[in-house]
C-alpha cells in the first residue's frame, strides 16, 4: 500500500486528543468494515510520529 496521506499528527500531544489520529483510526476501521485486510504495519508507516500509539490502537481495533 502506497502512502496516500502525510502524517499531520502532533507527536507532542496526546494522540487521542488529535483529530488526525482519530481520522487515521476511523479510516482503518472503514477498511476493516469494508472487508479489506489492510497491512497494519504498512499503514502505520504513514504516521511515523505516532507509530507506536497508532499501532497499539489499530491492534486493539482488530481485536474487537
Amino acid at each position: 500500500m502506497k502512502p496516500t496521506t502525510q502524517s499531520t499528527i502532533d507527536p507532542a500531544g496526546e494522540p487521542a486528543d488529535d483529530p488526525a489520529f482519530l481520522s487515521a483510526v476511523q479510516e482503518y476501521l472503514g477498511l476493516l468494515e469494508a472487508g479489506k485486510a489492510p497491512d497494519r504495519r504498512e499503514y502505520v508507516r504513514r504516521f511515523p510520529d505516532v507509530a507506536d500509539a497508532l499501532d497499539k490502537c489499530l491492534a486493539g481495533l482488530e481485536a474487537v
Partner: protein
Amino acid sequence: MTLSARSSTSTRNYLRLLARLEIGHRVQAKLDASDIVQETFLEAHRHFGQFNGKSEGEFVQWLRMILAARVANTLRHYLGTQGRDVRREEGPVLNLDHSSMQIDQFLAASISSPSQQAVRRERAVLLADALEALPKDYREVLTLRHFQGLSFPDVAQAMGRSVDSVQKLWLRALIRLKDSLGVVE
C-alpha cells in the same frame, strides 16, 4: 473434570461480558452482571448431574443456556417490580438478539470446523479477559461501539457524554485494550 475446575476466571469473564451485553447499558446501572453470573454458576452446580457433555466448549455452551435463562428471569422480575417497559426505556441501546450475536460471531458454531470453533472461542475468552481488566468506561465504550454496533452519536447518548468525548475515550480504550490483551495472551 469437576465443576469448580471448569469455573475458571476466564469463563466467568466471558459470561459476564455476555450478561452485560444481554442486560443492556442502562439497566446495568440497576442490575449487576456479576450477580447473574454467580447465580448461573450456583444453578450449574445444583444441576451439574444434568450436564451430558464432555468438552470445555460443551460446558460453556451449557452455561450460556443457563445464563440466558437467568438474564431473562432477572429482566422479567425487574420489569414486574418496576411496572414499566425497560426495553422501551433503553431506546437504541438494548437489543438482546443483536448483542449476543455480536460476541457469538467469535463462535460461529454452524459454519466452522471444531478446531476453528475452538480458536474462535479462545479468542472470545481472551477478549473477555482483556475487557474485564479495563476501566469501566473504557469497557463500556468498546462494548457499545463494537458489540452493540452503536454509532458514536448513540454511544454518546448512552454514556451521557459528547460525541467528541466518547471518540477520545474510544481511542484510549483501544490502546489500553491492546496492552490488556498483551497481558492475558
